[in-house]
């Protein structure tokens, strides 16, 4: 266990609530969510669909706006943080532009943010090698597999050196073998870049394998039912998933998920 308590808080939520007004009346996507995420943490949000995990991530990214409570990112409002380009966001689908090459796609945020041509080339080379795609810069997205496309989209999120990486079920659409490999690579990437990562998933093994902190959520209204500080070491080979410690944490996550469901059935 790291010194999370002492780490500088990067993301702080206090009593955050978010209500969508729909035709069928208000939907409470989030209710009374309080959470502190320290610098360099890898935090997973896990829960069944409708539990608000994606909404919470989107609220941190200022793509949604809380109707109650306060949310701060890097000590600023989420909107200010977005304008300061504080985070890279990875969506469930790679969402690469089909008319741009892989390198061109990674270059997109750099062009928008006004990096010089030379700087852009250098950064593209750097992040493509981080995700092991250095030889694919000139390919178009359709020439790559789904896993490679998602790696390219991670490279795109890393390209402008934001300290925070927000990932919304980035590997959800991939098969398990590819997912295992990407999880392993993501941990290495995290160790190398020391980013703070928020990661939405619905897979218990994925959450336990990746995270230093697991936030268990439950639906209607979306809320946090448990926050688990992982006791696993930072170095995590894939076979750590067979250890008793791993299984114990996974068990606690499963219990948390079951509790969240219990009071509504």
């Amino acid at each position: 266990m790291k010194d999370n308590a002492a780490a500088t808080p990067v993301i702080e939520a206090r009593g955050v609530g978010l209500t969508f007004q729909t035709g069928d009346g208000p939907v409470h996507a989030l209710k009374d969510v309080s959470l502190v995420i320290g610098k360099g943490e890898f935090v997973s949000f896990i829960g069944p669909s409708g539990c608000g995990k994606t909404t919470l991530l989107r609220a941190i990214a200022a793509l949604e706006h809380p109707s109650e409570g306060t949310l701060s990112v890097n000590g600023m409002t989420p909107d200010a943080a977005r304008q300061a380009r504080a985070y890279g966001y990875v969506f469930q689908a790679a969402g690469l532009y089909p008319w741009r090459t892989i390198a061109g796609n990674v270059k997109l945020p750099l062009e928008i943010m006004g990096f010089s041509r030379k700087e852009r080339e250098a950064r593209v080379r750097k992040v493509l090698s981080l995700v092991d795609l250095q030889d694919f810069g000139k390919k178009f997205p359709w020439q790559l597999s789904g896993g490679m496309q998602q790696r390219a989209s991670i490279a795109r999120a890393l390209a402008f050196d934001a300290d925070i990486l927000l990932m919304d079920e980035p590997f959800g659409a991939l098969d398990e073998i590819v997912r295992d490999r990407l999880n392993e690579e993501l941990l290495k990437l995290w160790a190398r870049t020391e980013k703070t990562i928020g990661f939405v998933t619905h897979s218990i093994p994925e959450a336990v394998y990746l995270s230093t902190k697991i936030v268990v959520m439950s639906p209607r209204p979306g809320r946090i039912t448990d926050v688990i500080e992982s006791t696993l070491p930072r170095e995590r080979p894939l076979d750590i998933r067979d250890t008793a410690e791993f299984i114990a944490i996974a068990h606690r996550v499963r219990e948390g998920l079951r509790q969240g469901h219990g009071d509504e059935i």
Partner: protein
Amino acid sequence: MRALVPVLTVVAAIVALWYGGSVWLNSQWTHDQAARVGVEVSLTGVVADTMMQERPVLPAPHQVAKGLWDGVMGQRITSKRSLVWHGWITLSATMLGFAIGTAAGIALAVGIVHSRAMDLSVMPWAIASQTVPILAIAPMVIVVLGGPPMNLPPLIAKAVIAAYLTFFPVVVGMVKGLRSPDAMQLDLLRTYNASALDTLIKLRLPAAMPYLFASLKVAVAASVVGTIVAELPSGAVAGLGARLLQGSYYGQTVQIWAALFMAATLAAGLVAIIALVERLALARMGMGR
């Protein structure tokens, strides 16, 4: 080349139907002529005559072909009898109108996509504009623009009418295309804090390209029609439309059909050019699969 046989079969069927139609429609005149001088005509005599009348109701294909050949190859291209010369007059107004209409269409679509007020206020007018018969509006445009005090050259007045037909498919296609990026792609740009201009240039416009080319093919054909219609009432002596009108004044049906085929060839050629540009552009954009 497996398509060759069915394609030739269809062409042969059309030509055969056309010859049948010529014989049927033109035979009345043959009979009338024969009755006037009081002679009997045999069936072969009727058929032979229907193929070589000076002013047939429906000219036979070979007559139209000969008319086309004479119009295109049989004249100096500067001659007023040359279909190449008339075709060029029509083509130049078509291209100018197409350029104006396309530019206006794209500009309107960008405005409509970015402004709700424009969406609500411009789109109904654009649709209404296309419900007005072009035949009704063309003479007024010619009079207003071509007559005093404006006295603009016929090229401009014709181009305006061509543009009037061109802009609409471009607006409709481009609005659809500019709105084609999904919520995720727009969210991605929001996370970069991208401006509306960045979003337009880097996402919306490239995403709209396939829609634009589909629209342009419809628009360029409409542009040819617009120019020809504009040439009808202008008292013009130049252009395929004028050629059509003269033909109908003097009952020169072969001339009419030759001009029609020239116009159709022109439109088909323009559509083919756009299809080629589309293929090259989309291939360069990595979307040419």
